[in-house]
C-alpha cells in the first residue's frame, strides 16, 4: 500500500495510483478530467453547429456530417459531460458531507468511472472508424435502423458500456447515503446536495434499466439479426421511443436535481442563512423524482397516442411545475434578508433563478398537448431544453466548480477571472438561446442542416451564433483561470470561503485519505454553522481514535472495462456483410475476426471478475499510532499557518 506522503511522487507512480485508485476523492478528479474533456469536445461540436447555421445556404458542414455533429453533441453533453461532471462533485463532496470514510463500494466506484471513460472513448472513436452516429441523441429506431454504416452501432455499444458505469454509480451512491451516515446525521439533517444526490441516484437505478433494455434491443437488431424494431418483420419502432423516454425524462431530473442541490448549498452559504423551508425542499425533491416517471409521453404527443393518453400525460407534466415552483420560492426566501456575498458561485446561482424559470415556463407551454403540435421538433424545443440544461445544469456545474474547487484541489480559482467568465457566459447564453424561441415560432425546424435565404431567419441565427462564440470565450477564460491557479499552486486552509455551513468544510484541506480521523458527531442541521455559533467551530467526535479499515487499490476495474471495450468492437463488426444482416451493414466487407474479438473481450472481463471473486482482498488497517501522528502533524501545521 503505497501512500506517498510529503514526498514528490514520480509521474509513473501518480498515473498508476490514479489507474488503480478506489479513493472517492481521486475518482472525483478522474470524473472531472474525463467529463471536462468530453465537455470541451461537445462544445467544439456546438461551435460547428452554430458556424454552419450562422448564415443561410451554408455548406460549411454537409447535410450528413451535420447530422453526425448534432447527434454527437447531444449524446456527448448528456452522457459524457453533464452526468460525469455531476458525479465528480458527488464523489468529492457527498461522503464528506455525511461524515463517511468513503462510498459504500469503493471498488464499484472505480469500476463506474472506468466504464464511463471506456464507453465515452468507444463512442467517439466512431469519428475515425467510418462515421459517427447520425440519428439524433434520441436515436429513434425508424432512423437508426436505416442509418447506413456502423455509426449507430458505436452509439448503442458505447452507451451500453458507459450506461453500465452510471447504473453502478447510482447504486453506489444510494447505498452510501442510506447506510454510511455518521452518528446523528439523520435523514432530515442531511444537506440538500446529499438529498438531491440520493434522489438522483434512486432515479438512476430506476431509469437506466429501461435504457439498457432499449439499447440491447437495438444492439440485437443491428448486430445479431433480431426484429424488435424492424417493421417489415413485424417489429414496432414506437417501442424504442417509449423505452427511451421512460429513461429520458427521469434523466433530465437526474441532471437537474443535483444541480438544485448545489445551488441550495451555495445560496445558504453566501446568504449566511439557513436554507429557507428545508423540509419543503426535501419534500419537493422527492416529489419531483416520483412524478418524473409518469410524464415520459410528453415527448411523444405527436406520435398519435390518442387524446386521452395525451391528456393524462399533459396533466402529469404540469403537476411537476408545482414542486419546482416551491423550490424557486424557497431559494428566493433564502436570499431574502440574507447578508449576501457576491462570489462567482453566488452570481451563477442568482443568474440561475430567472434563467431556469424561463425554461420551466416554456416547459409548461409544451406540456399543453395541442399547443405542442406547433412547438414539436421546432427550434422552440431547442430553446426550452437549453434554458433548463444550460441555465440549470451547466450553471450549476460552473458554480460548483468554483465553489468546490478548494475541496478538490486545495487551491482557490481567481475570483476576478471567475466573475468575468460568469458575466460573459451569462450574456452569451441568453444571446444564443432566447432568440431561438422566436425562430421556433417562426417555423424553423430543429435538426435541419441549413435554411433558405429570405425566410426571415438570417438575423436571428447570426445573433444566436455570436452568443455561442461568447460562451466559448467564457469557457476559455475558465481554462486560463484553471491553468493559472494550478501553476501558482497557492494552498488554502480549512473553510476557505469563510462561511461553510456543512460538514465538508470542517475538514482540513487537503482532507486526509481516510477523511475523518474520528467519526464525527452531528448535532443538527448545517452542523458546522451550528458549532460555529454554539461552540468553537470544531465538530465533536462520536468516538475515540480507532484503527481504520481501508480498501486496497485495484487494477481490476480497469481490466473489466477494457474487456467490454474490446468486446464492443467484436459485437459492432459481427454483422458486417453477413447475409442475414440489416440493409444498413449488409454491403460492408465481412470481418471474420469479429467473433473472436467479441469472445476475447468478454473473456478478459469475466476472468477479471473471477479474479476479483476468488482472490480475497481484505484491505488493510491504518493503526492508531499513524492516525495520532497525522493529527499532531496537522495541528502543528495549522498552528504554524496562523
Amino acid at each position: 500500500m503505497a501512500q506517498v506522503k510529503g514526498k514528490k511522487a514520480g509521474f509513473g507512480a501518480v498515473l498508476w495510483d490514479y489507474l488503480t485508485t478506489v479513493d472517492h476523492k481521486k475518482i472525483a478528479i478522474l470524473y472531472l478530467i474525463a467529463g471536462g474533456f468530453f465537455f470541451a469536445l461537445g462544445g467544439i461540436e456546438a461551435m460547428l453547429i452554430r458556424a454552419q447555421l450562422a448564415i443561410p445556404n451554408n455548406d460549411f458542414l454537409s447535410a450528413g456530417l451535420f447530422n453526425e455533429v448534432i447527434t454527437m453533441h447531444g449524446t456527448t453533453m448528456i452522457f459524457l459531460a453533464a452526468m460525469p461532471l455531476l458525479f465528480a462533485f458527488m464523489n468529492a463532496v457527498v461522503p464528506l458531507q455525511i461524515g463517511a470514510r468513503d462510498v459504500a463500494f469503493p471498488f464499484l466506484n472505480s469500476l463506474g468511472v472506468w466504464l464511463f471513460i471506456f464507453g465515452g472513448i468507444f463512442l467517439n472513436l466512431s469519428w475515425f472508424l467510418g462515421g459517427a452516429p447520425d440519428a439524433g441523441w434520441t436515436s429513434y429506431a425508424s432512423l437508426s435502423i436505416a442509418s447506413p454504416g456502423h455509426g449507430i452501432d458505436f452509439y448503442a455499444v458505447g452507451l451500453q458500456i458507459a450506461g453500465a458505469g452510471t447504473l453502478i454509480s447510482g447504486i453506489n451512491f444510494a447505498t452510501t447515503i442510506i447506510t454510511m451516515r455518521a452518528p446523528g446525521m439523520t435523514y432530515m439533517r442531511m444537506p440538500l446536495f446529499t438529498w438531491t444526490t440520493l434522489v438522483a441516484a434512486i432515479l438512476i437505478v430506476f431509469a437506466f434499466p429501461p435504457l439498457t433494455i432499449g439499447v440491447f434491443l437495438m444492439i440485437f437488431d443491428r448486430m445479431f439479426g433480431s426484429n424488435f424494431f424492424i417493421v417489415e418483420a413485424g417489429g414496432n419502432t414506437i417501442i424504442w421511443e417509449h423505452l427511451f423516454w421512460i429513461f429520458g425524462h427521469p434523466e433530465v431530473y437526474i441532471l437537474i436535481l443535483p444541480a438544485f442541490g448545489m445551488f441550495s448549498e451555495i445560496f445558504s452559504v453566501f446568504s449566511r442563512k439557513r436554507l429557507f423551508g428545508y423540509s419543503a425542499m426535501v419534500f419537493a425533491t422527492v416529489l419531483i423524482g416520483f412524478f418524473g416517471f409518469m410524464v415520459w409521453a410528453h415527448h411523444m404527443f405527436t406520435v398519435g397516442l390518442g387524446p386521452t393518453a395525451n391528456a393524462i400525460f399533459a396533466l402529469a407534466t404540469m403537476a411537476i411545475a408545482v414542486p419546482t415552483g416551491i423550490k424557486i420560492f424557497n431559494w428566493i426566501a433564502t436570499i431574502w434578508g440574507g447578508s449576501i456575498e457576491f462570489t462567482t458561485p453566488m452570481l451563477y446561482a442568482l443568474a440561475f433563478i430567472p434563467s431556469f424559470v424561463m425554461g420551466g415556463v416554456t416547459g409548461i407551454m409544451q406540456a399543453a398537448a395541442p399547443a405542442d403540435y406547433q412547438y414539436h421538433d421546432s427550434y422552440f424545443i431547442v430553446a426550452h431544453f437549453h434554458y433548463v440544461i444550460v441555465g440549470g445544469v451547466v450553471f450549476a456545474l460552473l458554480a460548483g466548480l468554483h465553489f468546490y474547487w478548494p475541496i478538490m484541489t486545495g487551491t482557490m480559482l481567481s475570483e476576478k477571472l471567475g466573475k468575468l467568465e460568469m458575466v460573459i457566459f451569462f450574456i452569451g447564453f441568453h444571446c444564443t438561446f432566447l432568440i431561438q424561441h422566436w425562430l421556433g415560432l417562426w417555423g424553423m425546424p430543429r435538426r435541419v442542416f441549413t435554411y433558405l435565404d429570405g425566410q426571415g431567419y438570417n438575423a436571428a441565427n447570426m445573433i444566436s451564433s455570436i452568443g455561442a462564440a461568447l460562451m466559448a470565450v467564457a469557457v476559455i477564460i475558465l481554462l486560463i483561470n484553471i491553468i493559472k491557479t494550478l501553476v501558482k499552486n497557492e494552498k488554502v486552509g480549512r473553510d476557505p470561503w469563510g462561511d461553510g455551513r456543512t460538514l465538508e468544510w470542517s475538514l482540513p484541506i487537503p482532507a486526509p485519505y481516510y477523511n475523518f480521523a474520528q467519526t464525527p458527531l452531528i448535532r443538527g442541521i448545517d452542523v458546522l454553522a451550528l458549532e460555529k455559533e454554539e461552540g468553537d467551530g470544531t465538530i465533536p467526535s462520536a468516538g475515540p481514535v480507532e484503527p481504520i479499515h481501508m480498501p486496497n487499490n485495484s487494477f481490476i476495474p480497469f481490466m473489466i472495462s477494457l474487456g467490454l471495450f474490446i468486446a464492443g468492437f467484436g459485437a459492432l463488426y459481427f454483422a458486417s456483410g453477413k447475409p442475414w444482416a440489416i440493409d444498413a451493414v449488409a454491403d460492408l466487407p465481412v470481418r471474420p475476426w469479429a467473433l473472436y474479438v467479441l469472445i476475447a473481450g468478454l473473456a478478459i472481463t469475466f476472468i477479471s471478475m473471477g479474479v476479483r471473486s476468488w482472490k480475497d482482498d481484505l484491505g488493510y488497517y491504518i493503526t492508531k499510532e499513524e492516525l495520532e501522528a497525522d493529527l499532531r502533524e496537522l495541528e502543528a501545521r495549522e498552528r504554524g499557518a496562523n
Partner: protein
Amino acid sequence: MAHHEPEQLTETQLKYLRTERTKEMRIQMISFGLMIFLTFIAFALVALELDKNFIVPIVIGLAFIQVALQFYYFMHMKDKGHDFAKLLILTGLYFAIAFVVCFIMIVWIGNPI
C-alpha cells in the same frame, strides 16, 4: 467501515443464536415448500386444460404470492432494517406495472385512446 473483532459469546447468547437460526431455517423450509406447492397448482391448472379465462388470472395471482414470498422470506424483507429497501422495491414494482400496462394499452393493442 470499521470491523469489530468478533467477541467471545456467552453460553446463553450462543443458545439464543442457535434457536433463532433454527426458527429461521424452519420458516425458509416452509415457504420453500409452499412455493413448490403453488408452482404445482399452476402446472396442474394448465395440464387440466381448463378454460383460459379461468387459468390466466389465477396463475398471475399465484405469481404475485410467489414474488411476495420470495421478497419477504428468502430476501429477508420481513427482517428489521429493510425499510428503505422495501420502499424502493414497492416503488419500483409500481413503476414497472405502470409501464407494462401502458405498453399493453398504447403499444401492443395500439388503438389510440
